[in-house]
């Protein structure tokens, strides 16, 4: 290299030497920050207002017009019941649908493609519409009444598309070579599906189902429409009136009394704790068992 070469400036800023680049980068970070800042503020705010009310009274007592002795026991129990029922309904139907679409259906037929489109569409329907469905058919149509079972059925239909989509992805991820190997040994289609494909897809299916469940237990609008709004002071039963935790939160928030708003915050803490637990469980499952093909 000639010593008389002109100085070459290669130095630049980290993310673009121009001030424009840096401003842009800052704006991007700001975008991200607003979301997380809001999340943080929300959690802190709820905690500050509600932590004092999280105690045995909240967990063990039924609601009351006297905030000092009001609790959310029936609501918490109902949410737990709903959770169990929702899993019991969505997993078989959702996985069954996913198996049908991935392993059995001829993808070139128009009706199977319509089926797929239908599921995509259902995933984007507002939750209140599912509430209307429940109101029309289950509560007033079938005459089931405003009961836990109706709530579970409606929430099942609400999260079913999510479970189907997650299960399909998990099943699709299982390599074709596994299926070929099983077929070549003389297994029937159901044997291949039930003994090789579904077991291999199980971690993905479980993760998807748990995440769907955590969404379902936070849903309020459909339950309000099918009548989970009434003042319930006794423990819920399958075919009895009920109120769930998110609905209880809604009820208490509506009341003008500031103490009830504090109780609402406390109930929110319980609900968020449940959801956090479910999400953490799902993530742990995914990290521990997910197969990298």
């Amino acid at each position, binding site marked *: 290299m000639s010593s008389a070469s002109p100085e070459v400036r290669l130095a630049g800023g980290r993310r673009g030497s121009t001030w424009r680049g840096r401003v842009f980068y800052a704006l*991007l970070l700001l975008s*991200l920050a607003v979301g997380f800042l809001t999340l943080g503020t*929300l959690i802190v705010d709820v905690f500050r207002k509600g932590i004092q009310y999280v105690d045995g009274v909240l967990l063990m007592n039924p609601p009351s017009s006297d905030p000092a002795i009001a609790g959310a026991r029936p609501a918490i129990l109902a949410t737990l019941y709903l959770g169990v029922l929702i899993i019991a309904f969505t997993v078989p139907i959702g996985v069954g649908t996913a198996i049908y679409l991935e392993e059995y259906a001829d993808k070139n037929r128009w009706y199977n493609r319509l089926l797929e489109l239908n599921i995509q569409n*259902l995933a*984007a329907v507002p939750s209140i519409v599912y509430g209307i469905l429940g109101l029309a058919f289950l509560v007033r149509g079938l005459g089931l009444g405003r009961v836990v079972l109706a709530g579970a059925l409606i929430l099942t239909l609400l999260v079913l598309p999510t479970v189907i989509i997650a299960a399909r992805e998990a099943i699709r991820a299982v390599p074709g070579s596994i299926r070929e190997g099983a077929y070549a040994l003389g297994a029937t289609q159901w044997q291949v599906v039930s003994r090789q494909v579904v077991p291999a897809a199980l971690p993905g299916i479980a993760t998807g189902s748990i995440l769907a469940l955590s969404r379902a237990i936070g*849903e309020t609008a459909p339950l309000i429409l099918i009548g989970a709004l009434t003042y319930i002071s006794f423990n819920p039963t399958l075919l009895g009136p009920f109120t769930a935790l998110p609905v209880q939160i809604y009820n208490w928030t509506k009341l003008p009394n500031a103490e009830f708003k504090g109780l*609402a915050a406390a109930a929110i803490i319980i609900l968020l704790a449940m959801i956090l637990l479910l999400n953490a469980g799902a993530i742990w499952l995914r990290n521990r068992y997910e197969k990298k093909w």
Partner: protein
Amino acid sequence: MATPAVTLSLAPPRKRWGETVIRGVLALCALVSVATTLGIVAALFIPAFEFFQTVNFVDFITGTKWAPLFLQKSFGVVPLIVGTLSVTFWACLVAIPLGLGAAIYLSEYARPRVRKTLKPALELLAGIPTVVYGYFALTFVTPLLRDIGIQVSVFNALAAGLVMGVMILPTVASLSEDAMTAVPRDLRDGAYALGSSKLQVSTRIVVPAAVSGIVAAFVLGISRAIGETMIVLLAAGQQPNLAFDPRQAVETMSAFIAATGAGDVPTGSIEYKTIFAVGATLFAMTLVVNAVAIRLVRKYREAYE
């Protein structure tokens, strides 16, 4: 290993009817989703149809006074639509730029490890129940707005809209980011090799290339905002004011449905049927918006996969 000397039967020992049964059961599972859609359509449009036998459709769609439960009934749905769109507007004002910004950061700027932590953290935002967001809007955001000088009433569209924006931000961000990461490396590399800065590559190459996926993300965010119930129920109020001023209370379609459906309107009455008429309107709106979004998603998937 030993082979039979004469005819070899390759027929199954008994016909495998079990396989047919299983196929039938699985198809039945798939039919649940079909039944759901049919149920939704029937649940909405049959009572809505009956409703429109009594109430003139044009009056409904264009009328500006909504008072179905009063003695002096009026069935103009425009205030509800305006209420919905007003809240949606503020939500989009928040979610679209911030969501896109977050997406660009995650896709173009963030290191892989940072991305791996931030993306699920963003999903956390989406996992918060909407009733919690509603509580937050009512008890924190509205007083906050007042503190900084905006004279909002106790129930107002602004607080609800802003919080709703944060709620749909992860949806917009996540889908936009997917669209942008799907853009092949070569396009970026070509631009970088010519000496472009990250800002230029992001805004002039990547975003335009991913535009159909990004617009799909926006549209899906809009769809969620239109149908959202709890935030508006708690924070926006139940007064069907025909108001564009976000500081006033409004009633959205979803809030009306929730409030009325939970109440004690007698089954089969005209008030009861308003639930379904408004529900059908809401469903029709989201259907159109979703159809647009799905077509766009398909378009961007086809382009790169």
